[in-house]
């Protein structure tokens, strides 16, 4: 497999009675920022830990640069991990933490000193060598954990939901930091998260998982604009998912109205799921669009107005910078390119997640 850095083949993994991964396959290429995205329990962390060597698959193999490393323990893999709660050694200071891996490789004192300074500089924490871990803030600890991992120049960096404990602004700053680091260092990032915003912002490739099965793999744009099933559509961004009937290629019937679209290959008169993003709904005067309705909810969230519109027997979620007060009669339209057709879910894991409020 030319260019593939990591390959997981036919991985099976169970914990007690629960099967987490079944016949799981994944290829990661060099210099990629690939994100495993999914809800809790979907198997993304288990996959990451198998790559890192902290879990052994029940069946299947892990390949690194073409060699089978399934039986290789974590301390011999040329891979480093940034742990979810940072796992910084509390009894050592910043410098000792970062130098830990370098000391083990037997580097000279001068090399270590230089490398530590370089790493701290890279994460914008110059001069922090002698600080105690307990004195650091969450964001600083996160960056030290990064520094400790990358200073060993691994080919692959594994990141297990590292931004989860940070508040919003800091998280957004760190997302940009991670992209910058990846570009500067040129190493492959395998990132695990349940937060779709992180996934879409940073990744070259997103792997959406549910129940141990890959639902869809693609660039952030592909995942967002062309979700392949209800689960992906619902998990990424807000969406309107409606039952519809594919009349024929490029024609779909939604809420008893005919809508032209651009998808083909879904058959004739077949039931399908349709996804339309809220921001793609064009709101106009009644009668001027494809579907008439009434505004039932309106909330201002800063970036835009979130509105719910009852039309054609369905509650549509719409986003617009213009506000339409509750009770206004409106019409809805959507251009063909923004109608995404999906197959009906074949299995439970392809369905949208129901949340118990």
């Amino acid at each position, binding site marked *: 497999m030319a260019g593939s850095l990591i390959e997981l083949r036919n991985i099976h993994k169970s914990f007690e009675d629960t099967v987490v991964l079944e016949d799981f396959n994944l290829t990661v290429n060099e210099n990629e920022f690939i994100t495993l995205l999914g809800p809790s329990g979907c198997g993304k962390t288990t996959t990451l830990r198998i790559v890192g060597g902290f879990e052994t698959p029940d069946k299947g193999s892990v390949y690194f640069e073409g060699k089978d490393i399934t039986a290789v323990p974590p301390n011999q893999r040329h891979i480093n991990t940034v742990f979810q709660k940072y*796992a910084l050694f509390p009894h050592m200071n910043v410098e000792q933490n970062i130098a*830990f891996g370098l000391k083990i490789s037997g580097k000279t004192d001068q090399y270590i000193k230089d490398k530590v300074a370089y790493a701290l500089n890279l994460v914008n924490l110059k001069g922090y060598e002698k600080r105690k871990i307990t004195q650091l803030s969450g964001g600083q600890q996160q960056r030290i954990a990064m520094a400790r991992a990358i200073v060993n120049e691994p080919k692959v960096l594994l990141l297990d939901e590292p931004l989860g404990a940070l508040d919003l602004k800091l998280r957004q700053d760190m997302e940009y930091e991670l992209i910058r680091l990846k570009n500067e260092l040129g190493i492959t990032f395998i990132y695990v998260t349940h937060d779709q915003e992180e996934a879409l912002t940073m990744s070259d490739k997103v792997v959406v998982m549910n129940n141990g099965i890959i639902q869809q793999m693609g660039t952030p744009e592909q995942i967002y604009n062309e979700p392949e099933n209800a689960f992906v559509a619902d998990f990424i961004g807000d969406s309107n998912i409606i039952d519809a009937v594919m009349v024929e290629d490029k024609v779909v019937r939604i809420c008893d109205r005919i809508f032209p679209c651009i998808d083909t290959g879904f058959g004739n008169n077949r039931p399908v799921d349709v996804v339309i993003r809220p921001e793609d709904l064009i709101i106009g005067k009644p009668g001027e669009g494809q579907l008439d309705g009434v505004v039932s909810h309106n909330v201002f969230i800063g970036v835009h107005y979130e509105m719910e519109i009852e039309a054609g027997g369905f509650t549509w979620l719409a986003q617009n910078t213009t506000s339409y007060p509750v009770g206004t009669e409106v019409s809805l339209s959507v251009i063909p390119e923004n109608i995404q057709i999906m197959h009906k879910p074949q299995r439970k894991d392809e369905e949208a997640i129901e949340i118990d409020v």
Partner: protein
Amino acid sequence: MSRRYFASPFIVWIAAGTVIPLIMIAYYGFTDRSGAFTIENVVSIMGAEHAQALWLALLLALISTAICFVLAFPLALILKDSRLGTKGFMIFIFVLPMWMNFLLRTMAWQVILERGGIINGILTGLGLPALDIINTPAAIVLGMVYDFLPFMVLPIYNTVMKIDNSLIEAAYDLGATKGKVLRSIILPLSVPGIASGITMVFVPALTTFVISNMLGGGKINLIGNIIEQEFTTSSNWNLGSGLSLVMMIFIVLSMALLSRLDKNGEASLI
């Protein structure tokens, strides 16, 4: 009424039950029978018989503490890894023997160790020479280790269990061998528990008189025996208190060491 005053019964009890009695020891330690000030009682530690008792007690206590540590630390590590030790179960297993009277348990070792006893029965049965341990310092060490091992295991176990597994995984991730993980991660983070365990074994071992009585055949005198005799058979409170004061120096030293190594007071028995 402020909630702070809830603690008053306790404070009264400390004053009456701990502070005043300690003052008593100090008073009697530094006076003679007539009440006059003297340092005779304290200085008498240098006398041959007393000095020997103190040295022997120190030696045996140190050996026992070391043995307890060597036994307890690997045990704590094994239990941390395995699934079988839940915290409650561990405490259960080590606290349970305390419900069989400790005098009898200690004395049972007499049965096990003596010339005609069980161990020698097995050894001679196998054709090996009989062990003559009973009534020697070795027997006393055995008794000390037996009685105090739980006090070393529990604090160390508690501290080791608190070590976040992700720290150990991070160390492996960075390339550490098992030995390096033990030396650089687990051991330093176990220090509070180890310090607590050492104190909880060393002090009782140093001051015991029961164990030396029962397993030493009554011929081996530790400092504890001498003090006990001064208070029961000899009724020489002054000498007894004086010797206690000397013994207490070592207790205070242990406590000071403990508070240095366990700054946050995180190590506990429970």
